[in-house]
């Protein structure tokens, strides 16, 4: 009886040791269950929801009944307010960025469909230097905590995706000249 107890104990200890070795061996590997995968495309940034015009999303709401027309043309019935400007408009049109089949997605050059919340990947295809700076927090505005969670903005929050040049602003009042300070 006593011998069996010792045997059981030994087996349990051996199993525990094996498990420890296995975990230690796995720990360095990326797909280990404790460490989430860290790829470029999988990093998520805290961004507010995309700045859609009210009531325009999901696009499939209207587009589900329409037959997709991949032919490049000037839109006459809908989306007439959208004007491509300041962004090589001659070389570009809707389906360069919007997906033909799934209207609620954007489309990378690789054909990969991405959500509107990830639109920075779309812009980053060409503007790699800005994308790199944006990821580390140097391009664009950050709010939140300097030592913790910071909120990013999507490119489209500051740059209208169809007319990306930053709009001029009215400056706030200049300081008073000393002679007017009483």
């Amino acid at each position, binding site marked *: 009886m006593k011998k069996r107890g010792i045997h059981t104990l030994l087996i349990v200890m051996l199993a525990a040791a094996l498990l420890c070795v296995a975990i230690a061996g796995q720990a360095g590997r990326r797909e280990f269950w404790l460490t989430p995968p860290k790829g470029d495309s999988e990093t998520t940034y805290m961004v507010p929801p995309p700045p859609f015009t009210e009531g325009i999303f999901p696009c499939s709401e209207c587009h589900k009944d329409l037959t997709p027309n991949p032919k490049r043309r000037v839109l006459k019935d809908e989306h007439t307010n959208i004007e491509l400007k300041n962004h090589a408009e001659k070389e570009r049109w809707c389906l360069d960025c919007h997906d033909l089949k799934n209207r609620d997605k954007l489309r990378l050059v690789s054909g990969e469909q991405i959500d509107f919340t990830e639109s920075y990947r779309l812009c980053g295809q060409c503007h790699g230097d800005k994308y790199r700076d944006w990821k580390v*927090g140097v391009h664009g505005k950050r709010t939140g905590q300097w030592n*913790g969670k910071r909120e990013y903005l999507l490119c489209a929050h500051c740059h209208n995706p169809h007319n990306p040049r930053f709009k001029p602003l009215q400056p706030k*009042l200049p*300081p008073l000249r000393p002679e007017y300070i009483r």
Partner: protein
Amino acid sequence: MSTEETREKRIFQLTRRKALKGLAAGLGALALPAKGASASIWESFFQKNFRELGKPELERILAKLEKEYSAQYGKSVKVKATPPLEGVLYGYGLDLSRCIGCRRCVYGCVTENNQSRDPQIHWIRVLRLEKERGVDLEHAEQYYNPSTVPEEGHFYLPVQCHQCENPPCTKVCPVQATWKENDGIVVVDYNWCIGCRYCMAACPYGARHFNWKKPGLPAGEMNPDTHYLGNRPRPVGVVEKCIFCMQRTRELDGRYPACVEVCPVGARKFGNLLDPESEIRYVIANKRVFILKEDLNTQPKFYYFYSV
């Protein structure tokens, strides 16, 4: 003893020594708080320098200030004295290729840091410079007021306290009412400052400002989250300056300074210089960076850079 001698002793004689004694006593009495001054003014009159205060003493002073300000501004005012965070040295980056000179930062700072509205005090000054001349401060214009910015052929250079590592302002203070804290922020003890304005003369960036009058701060616009060495309401006759919003940045949930949060173009960067992963370290390592008036060896922790 002759009658003449006795008479000389009896009549009042104003000697040089007596006159000086009287003058000293009179001037001393003038320097004391007025007769009608409240007890708290008497107390702050005899208060020690901030750096010599013990913990119970400091807590009593903070509680007293909170009570005073709360009554004055009709809201619950918090006065903190949070010490610097360990292992933190603040650094600031300003992207000159992004700044459009819209002055949002100027007024964001005024609101956050309880500057006097009237007479006007601004901690941030935005200089407009000509692209042709580059950073040529002699041709800087701070009163520009076009309908929209940016203007053709110009760029903008906001200036505020550079939180120098080698600050000339603290060296000239005759009473040590201003000093550099361990996180690099140069602070002023408003209760200790005598208002001589030597520091203003010493600062090469024009970053210090004097309260010529009692600050005009409307109760409705008063920010109740304050720091003793930072944005608490200032008395008349003291010098004040940018303190990197220490009421925000020194807390554990260190929020960005108000000017960083308000900048519409994201030209302002802030972080810990001792943290190699921080934004500011990335800027210094990867961008074209310069500091203002480098030749003065003030070693500012305020870095201007070009992101493109």
